[in-house]
């Protein structure tokens, strides 16, 4: 049975730090002359949503309800698909599927890894 979880609309420091930089694809792509309508990570995000639903870790209906509310209240000035990504992570943090501290740490590790190439 799907659990009704209380959605915590309080802003998440880690996500607030990410959104404040003006690096959304719809801003960035034109600067570089790129006309792809979506960033390269969009299909991976889509796959992540499908995977979470398939495994039962985060059913689509629950995820979308949270996303609707978050997109209206917290991330209402963030364009898609960044709003979808932030809402997903926000929801996963709420539900204890991942933790903010470890996510911040992993982001540092991933950035070092990618920039070392």
């Amino acid at each position: 049975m799907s659990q009704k979880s209380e959605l915590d609309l309080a802003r998440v420091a880690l996500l607030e730090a990410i959104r404040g930089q003006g690096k959304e694809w719809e801003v960035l792509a034109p600067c570089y002359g790129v006309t792809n309508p979506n960033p390269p990570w969009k299909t991976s995000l889509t796959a992540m949503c499908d995977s979470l639903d398939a495994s039962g870790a985060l059913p689509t209906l629950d995820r979308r309800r949270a996303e609707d509310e978050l997109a209206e209240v917290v991330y209402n000035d963030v364009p898609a698909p960044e709003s979808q990504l932030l809402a997903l992570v926000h929801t996963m943090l709420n539900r204890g599927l991942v933790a903010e501290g470890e996510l911040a740490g992993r982001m540092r590790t991933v950035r070092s890894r990618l920039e070392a190439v």
Partner: protein
Amino acid sequence: MKSKTIEKSQNNIGVLEEHPLGVQPRFKVGDRVQLRDMPYFFYTRSQMWARGIVGTIAALTYSDLVPEDEAFNVDGRVEQYYIVRFRQKDVWPEYPFENDTIQTESPERWLEPIS
């Protein structure tokens, strides 16, 4: 469980109608039905706009388990799903256009027959 293909209903809807042998659909195309207004405690796929409204069976679709998020009757029974059609004027009292309609899908257990 084997499924049996039935003649598609002529209703501008192209869909493979199927139900397993032994599942007798309660309703047929054209029957008048009402969507039950049920309490719900969990997320449900029965929208608020359709509850308590009388509509018409537009098509039979597939048979499936009813979503587990119903507040009662979690019995694992496979049942027929339907497309139900409503007049917009019956859903929204102030809707201005006579002919417009709206359709949605429903499992059998959410539907009450209306004579």
